């Protein structure tokens, strides 16, 4: 496991370094910047889904769905990152303490 973590960390570091070593002309093709943007958004969107409904035995709906909804409302109200995360945790923990989800 540690080997994979080190490899993942080094891969991310090498990507950062590549930005400083590659010729700036790479950015002349608008598809490069746009595709990178969309891969980032696509990954994060999929991670939201997996983290919210993923389970050991297939998809499951539980307190995490409520946590995500509360987080979305907090983001609409322009709450800072830390507050959004804390509200997500509090919602899931609160519902479970009440015996739901």
């Amino acid at each position, binding site marked *: 496991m540690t080997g994979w973590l080190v490899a993942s960390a080094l891969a*991310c*570091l090498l*990507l*950062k370094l590549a930005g400083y070593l590659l010729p700036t002309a790479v950015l002349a093709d608008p*598809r490069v910047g746009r595709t990178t943007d969309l891969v*980032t958004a696509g990954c994060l969107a999929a991670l*939201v889904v997996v983290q919210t409904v993923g389970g050991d035995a297939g998809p499951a709906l539980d307190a995490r769905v409520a946590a995500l909804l509360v987080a979305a409302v907090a983001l609409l109200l322009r709450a800072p990152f830390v507050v959004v995360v804390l509200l997500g945790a509090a919602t899931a923990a609160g519902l479970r303490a009440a015996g739901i989800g």
Partner: protein
Amino acid sequence: MLRSPAVRQGLSVGVATGLYGISFGALATAAGLSVWQACLLSAVMFTGGSQFAVVGVLAAGGAPVAGFASATLLGLRNAVYGLQLAPRLRPRGWRRLLAAHLTIDESAAVSAAQDDADEARWGFWAAGLGVFVCWNATTLGGAVLGDALGDPRRWGLDGAAAAAFLALLWPRLRRRETAAVAAAAALVAVLTLPVAPAGVPVLAAALVAAALGWWRTRPARRDAP
């Protein structure tokens, strides 16, 4: 130095961002990493989205190679930031490696927000170093805390992780086309989740997003005569 508005802006971003290193540290140990493994990711990988992705994939029971792939895909954008920052910072020798290491969403954003060339440089270094110091300190704190908490579900840490990914995605949804691709990626994840091994839905979604980005964006026009 503290009179520079870019430095002050950079440092305040550093403190604010560093604060949520606590949530990363806690989620990492809740996902089964040791305290020092969590700290290793913050020190060497040092890019929040990828770090949360590795931990998210492992927490869901995904294979380490799936965590590697998700982290790398999310880290691609840092290469683009580097391409944009290199002509502005023009780092030489060991400073180039340091600049690369500190290239993240926050340092790139603070630098890009400055009109003056010197301020753009100062802003980058202040935000990068500020986030690095705070992020690593709070990761350690969060990891120790997460280790002591016991069952992560009881404390709602899985809900916190879902909220964290949504908060990272949120500012990108302002652009309508990005929001549409994010929705398509989410749909791919929903459809593949019941049938694919853990970690694979994220990769499938990323590939769909990449394909949409590459083929729907017009390449640069050749110079017309």
